[in-house]
Every structure is written in C-alpha cells, then in structure tokens.
C-alpha cells in the first residue's frame, strides 16, 4: 500500500494519524516513549551490550582453559566470570532479546494492533530490566560479582562460605529482574488475547505469536518460584532465617527444587522464541505455508507445559528416591514428542516448498542441525545411569550449549537478518550474510562439539584450570580456537548490519514476500503501525491479496482507520470479533520515574539501608498513584 496511490481523503486520514501518534523528538522522546517499536529497539541495543559482555566473559574463560595451568584468570575471578556468563546470557541476553526486542517489535505488528495492551507497563518493563542488569553488573565491576554459578547452589551460596556481597547482587538482581519479566509476560498475554486484528481468531494467529504466548505463560508460572527462592536466600543471608541449613531444620535441596522448578521451564522459555522465529522464516523462504499448522501451535504450548514436570532431571545425583527419578526421566522423554512434531513440520515445509536459501533460512538450517544434536544428547540424560555418570562433566556443558547457543541463538541471528529490512528499511548484504553464517556455524561446532569428548574423558565443568597430561589439551585448545572463530562470525554479522543500516539498498515494505501482517506496512513502520486496521481471514494475511486491496479501499472510505484519537481496536478473546475501540495512553514520564525509584530501592536493600529502601518503596507507590491519575478520555 504505497503512499503515492492514496486518494486525497486517504492521504488526509494518514496525515491525521501521523499527527496524533507522533512522539517527541530527540532524547526526551526515547526516555518517555511508550511506542512498542521504540521500546523494542531500546531492548535490542541494551541486550546487545549485555551479549557483548557475556561474550567477553566466555572468551576470557576459553583463553584461561586453552592450555593446562594457565594464569589468565585466578580462581575467584574465574568463578565470577563463569557465573556472570550464565546469568548474562540467560537473564540479560536471550530472554530480553527474544521477548523484549523481537517480541515487542513484532507481536503488535503481527497482530495488526497499534500498540501493546499496556504501553506504559511495557516501558516500565524495559526500565526495570535496564536497572536490574546494571545492578548485577555493578557487582562484577566491584570484584564482588556473583560467584556460585548461575544455579547458585546452597550451601556454597550461604553467608558462611560466601561472606561478601557477591550472592546478594545475584539474589536481589534476579528478584528485580523477575519483576520486569512478569510485567512483560503479563503484557504479552493480554495483548495476544485482546488486541488481535478483527478476524484473527486463535487458529489464524501467527505461530511466532503462539510461541510468544507459550513463553509468556511459562514465565508467569515459573518465575515466582525463583523469586521466592531468592527471597529465602536473602532472608537467610541477611536476617539469619533458616531455610537451607540442615542444622536448624532447613534443607539444602529445597534451593534446588525451587530453582529447577523455575530452571527447567526456563530452558523452554529460552528456546521457544527460537521455534517461533523458525516458523516465521521457513514459510517465507520456502514459499509454502507451515504444514501441520495447528499441530505446531499445540506443540509449542505443549513443550511449555511439559517443561513444568521435568525439573528433577537436573537433580538425578542428589539422592532422590528411585521412584521420583523414574517419573522425571519418563516425563523428560515426553518432551521429545512435541519437539519432533516441530522438527518434522519445519523440514517437511522446506521440502514441500521451493526453498530459497538466503541467509535467514541458512541460520534456521543451522538451528535445526544443532537442535537435533543437542536434543539427542538430551535424550541420553533421560537415561538415569548415563546422567549419573556424566553429571558435572563437560558433556553437560556441550549439551546445553548446543541447545542454548545452537538452537536458541541461531534463530535470533537469522531473525536479525530477516526483520532487519522491516526495522531499518534497508537490505543487508546477502553474500556477507551467508559468509557470516558459515563462519558462525563452523565456530559453534568447533567450540562445543569437542566438549562432548572431553566430558566423556572425565573433565569436570566449572573448574578454573586443569592439569596437563590428561589428554584434554588438544580438545580444549580447539574449543578456544572455535570460540574466536565464532566471535569473528558474530562480528561479521553485526558489521554487516551496521554497514547495511547506512549503505544498504532500500528494501520497500515487503522484500521477502512474507506472509504475516508486519510485511503489509511500510519499512520502518509508522508510529501507528497500520494506516487502516487490517482485516484477517487466514494465518498468512499478507498472501491474501484481495483482503489487502480491501484495506486500501477502507482507508479511502474511513472504515476502521480510527484517525480521530490515539486508538486501537480490541477483539473478543477466542474468535477475534471486533469488540471495542480502546483509547491508548501516549508518552509518559511515569515509567522511567518508577523504574528509577525501584532501582534505588534495590540498591538500598543491597546496602542494607532498609529504612531508606522503605522510603523509596513509598515513593514508588506514590508514583503509581500519579501514573493512574491520567485517565483516558471518555468516549
């Protein structure tokens, strides 16, 4: 729907939308924004910075482990760097990148909405995330970073063995981070339930959005147990409560149960958005709709659901009763079913279509390969004796890096290329993109595959160094070389994107002929996303040309253009019938104000100034009062 073909009345309506939805220019506009696309971009660059930090930590560890008895990092520094690598990649990179950046930017666009259900809460999620990330990293820069592993097992994490502030940075940082994630997840679920374009019944919802729904539900149900676990830990460390010490009736395993009740759904929280990105990229480049569409949607939800029944497979060596072990082993096996449904659906879709192997599809190919390898070593862990033999070795590290890096990050990288033209309006360089894929692919395989072997040879994980003469040297060296190759591949990707941002050819609204609604609007999309609210009759509305021509006609006649206010339509939850028109809030100072107050609150808790913390808590409540004093105009 190019601007030049618009009639005079349509052009007038678009002009009015431009004026109503415009936000303030410059820095103030970014600080007060409630536009989901701008918040997505803020998330993108923030998580990218954390990704760089986590990557540097990985390189430091690999340099230390390149040879036996190396002295790049001492044991205390190594522990901090290792812990922060895990915490960063999980809480500060993958989750906020997929949900915060991709989800924020794309979900309203794919739903045909003009914003999220709670735009100011959306901004608040970002500011809280930024505050929590900075808080956790302050610890590392003060040489007081978390140092008991990302799983932070007690009793090692108790005051007696870890007397500094290290673990307090971890526990308070993750409680803080959890608030941001719960707010974001709630926002996504309500947006997905309520703000779909008219006609988008649940069975016509894009599979990417199904994945985001599954992730958000997992977050809502899984995160509270981590929060409670960290609250217990802080109460024990700060105020002398007894949850985890056996001498006073506590239990060290309680930490692990609560942690992994969160921690395993967390794995699917990390990898499900990747599934969603794969189901967006494959139909576009295979030029074929996803086969088994409803089965894939159900499989995405089922993975998230089964993820809640498998946590004890992280605890097979803790002395749980055999009956418990067998139950959790069986439940873990069940995850294979929905995963396999999806793998078949992806590969068969590619086979049925006329695939065009551009860079995004290559990354999805790499994703499927790594997911299968990591999945196969995952099934091996469901065999209890095998798990007990390989637990705490590099074999486990190999497995979960194939999943978390190979399966979760490859689609993120492919998705960056895929949606780059939509966000910037420019095309990336295809040849360099393909080269960057092969470099990243080779680097990933070289880094993580030898870890299987060195793990089976008996090398324990989480060690800061090892003795020579054990036959581990060559494998470790190749892992380190792989890590640098991988880094080169990642730098090539970001170099390509940076160069293309300024020099790439213009992309137009739909360079790849994608099927979902984000491709119907201009690149980059205007503040209001769609000049006319699209009407949806299939899961791939951009391939329904008659409907899109109808949109252009409706823009001329003014049907559901909503150019009289800051408005978006809401639909019924299941069938997607148009239900009402909502007045949406515009830019606001409250989210960043509240974010700042809560950040100070957590800093004061960390420093032990509980009274000052209480004052800032009260100020935050007052800020909420101010926030809600702004009501939308009555129709």
């Amino acid at each position: 729907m190019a601007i030049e073909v618009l009639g005079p009345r349509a052009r007038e309506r678009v002009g009015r939308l431009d004026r109503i939805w415009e936000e303030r220019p410059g820095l103030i506009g970014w600080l007060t924004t409630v536009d989901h696309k701008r918040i997505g971009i803020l998330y993108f660059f923030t998580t990218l910075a954390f990704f760089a930090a986590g990557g540097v930590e990985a390189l430091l560890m690999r340099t230390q482990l390149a040879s036996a008895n190396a002295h790049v990092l001492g044991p205390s520094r190594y522990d901090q760097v290792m812990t922060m690598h895990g915490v960063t990649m999980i809480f500060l990179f993958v989750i906020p990148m997929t949900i915060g950046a991709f989800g924020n930017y794309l979900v309203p666009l794919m739903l045909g909405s003009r914003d999220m259900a709670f735009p100011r809460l959306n901004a608040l999620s970002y500011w809280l995330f930024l505050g929590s990330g900075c808080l956790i990293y302050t610890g590392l820069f003060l040489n007081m970073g978390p140092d008991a592993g990302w799983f932070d097992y007690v009793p090692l994490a108790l005051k007696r063995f870890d007397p500094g502030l290290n673990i307090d940075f971890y526990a308070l940082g993750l409680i803080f981070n959890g608030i941001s994630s719960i707010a974001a997840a709630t926002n996504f679920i309500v947006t997905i339930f309520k703000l779909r374009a008219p006609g988008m019944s649940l069975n016509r919802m894009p599979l990417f959005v199904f994945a985001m729904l599954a992730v958000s539900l997992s977050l809502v149900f899984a995160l509270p147990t981590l929060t409670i676990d960290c609250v217990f830990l802080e109460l024990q460390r700060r105020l002398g409560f007894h949850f985890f010490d056996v001498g006073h009736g506590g239990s060290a395993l309680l930490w692990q149960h609560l942690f992994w009740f969160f921690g395993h759904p967390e794995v699917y929280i990390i990898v499900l958005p990747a599934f969603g990105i794969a189901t967006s990229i494959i139909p576009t480049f295979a030029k074929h709709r996803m086969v088994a569409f409803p089965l894939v949607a159900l499989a995405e939800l089922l993975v998230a659901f089964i993820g809640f029944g498998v946590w004890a497979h992280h605890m097979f060596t803790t002395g749980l009763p055999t009956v418990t072990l067998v139950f959790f082993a069986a439940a873990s096996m069940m995850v294979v079913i929905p995963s396999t449904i999806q793998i078949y659906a992806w590969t068969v879709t590619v086979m049925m279509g006329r695939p065009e192997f551009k860079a995004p599809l290559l990354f999805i190919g790499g994703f499927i390969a790594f997911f299968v390898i990591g999945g196969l070593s995952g099934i091996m862990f469901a065999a209890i004796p095998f798990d007990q033999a390989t637990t705490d070795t590099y074999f486990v590290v190999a497995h979960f890096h194939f999943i978390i890096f190979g399966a979760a990050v490859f689609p993120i990288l492919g998705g960056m290329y895929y949606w780059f033209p939509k966000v910037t309006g420019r095309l990336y360089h295809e040849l360099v993109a393909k080269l960057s894929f092969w470099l990243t692919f080779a680097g990933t395989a070289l880094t993580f595959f030898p870890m299987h072997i060195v793990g089976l040879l008996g090398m324990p994980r989480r060690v800061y160094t090892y003795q020579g003469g054990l036959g581990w040297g060559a494998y470790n060296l190749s892992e380190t070389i792989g890590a640098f190759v991988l880094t080169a591949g990642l730098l090539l990707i970001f170099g390509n994107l940076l160069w293309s941002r300024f020099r790439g050819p213009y992309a137009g609204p739909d360079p790849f002929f994608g099927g979902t609604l984000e491709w119907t609007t201009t690149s980059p999309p205007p503040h209001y996303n769609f000049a006319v609210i699209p009407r949806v009759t299939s899961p791939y509305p951009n391939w329904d040309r008659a409907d899109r021509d109808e949109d252009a006609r409706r823009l001329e006649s003014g049907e559901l253009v909503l150019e009289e206010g800051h408005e978006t339509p809401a639909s019924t939850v299941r069938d997607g019938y148009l239900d009402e028109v909502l007045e949406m809030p515009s830019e606001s100072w409250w989210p960043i104000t509240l974010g700042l107050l809560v950040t100070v609150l957590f800093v004061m808790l960390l420093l032990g100034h509980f009274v000052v913390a209480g004052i800032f808590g009260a100020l935050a409540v007052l800020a909420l009062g101010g926030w809600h004093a702004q009501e939308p105009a009555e129709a």
Partner: protein
Amino acid sequence: MTEHALPRRAPRPRPVAHPNGWWGMAIFLASEAMLFGALLGTYYYLRFKAVHWPPPGTPEPKVVLPLILTAVLVATSVPMQAALRAARAGRLGATRLALALALTAQATYFGLQMHLFLGDLAKFSPGEHAYGSIYFTLLGAHHAHVAVGLLLDVWLLLRLSTGLTRYRFTALWATTFFWHFVNALAVLVVLTQLSPSL
C-alpha cells in the same frame, strides 16, 4: 464484506470481552498463585522432613482467633462484589458505601493480624529454626497482600469521590478480583499456619 461488515468505530455499545485491566489482573494473580504455591510447598516440604513440628520449645499456634478473623476476611468478598454490582448499575453512592464497609472489615482484620504477628514474634523468632522462618515468611507474605489490597481500596475511594469512569470501573473490577483471590488464599494460609494444632 461477508461475515461481518466493519463499522467506522465500536460495533456495540458495551464490549462482550472482559477489559484489558481485568485480564492483566488475572495473569498477575496466576503468578501470585505460583508465589504462594512455592511458599506453601516449602512449608510442607520442611515440615515432612522435621521430626518435631513445631520444634520443642516453640508454642503451637492458637486456633480460635485466626479462624474467626479469616472468616471475617472471607466475608468481605460480599461487600466487594456488591460494590462492583452497584458500580455496574451506575450507583456511585452504593458503590462507595459497600467499598467503605469492606475496607473497614479488612482494616480491622489487618490490625488484629498484625497484633497477633507481633505477639508471635515476641514468643519465637524466625532466626531460631526453619519452622519460625517459614511461619513468619508465609504470614508476612499474606499480610503484605492484605496491605496492598487496603491501599487499593483507599485509592479507589479517593478516585470515586470525583465520580465513576470506565477506567475506575475497571480498576474496581480488578481490585475485587484481587480481594477474592487474597481471601481464598487466606483460607489456605490459615489452615497451613494452624495445621500443627488441628
């Protein structure tokens, strides 16, 4: 234009789906349920590992007053629902009256519970034994939720003093939902708290 012609604006005078604010509260309460699930789960996990629960020297919880108080709190679901009904019918005065009634009972509950809580703290501390730790953490979390509910009530009464809008109606709806949840949870919490004496 086959199944439903698209109108210029809203199709119906009153939407059929629940408002976003209600849905937001529903999802939030789902995560709150998990939070309390973790607390209650911890209570029983620690309890069934212990030989003596409560440990020797710690008094068993007194039963009568907490049960009566919980009954009073649960009963406030009625005036909350009445406030919501009155607001839906546009009767502002009745809304405020019912809300004030609920607030009075809830505040009384909160005050007496805090009295009991401090009394317990004088008898045994969370730093002595895991029993005290989970006892005070569980009750503290519950009381914190009641306190948040009280703040919501006060804020609603302040907002309603200048009239009823759709925004405030949604807020009342969500707050009512919050109280129903807290009240249902209060039953589980008090039964768990008193379980050593029951």
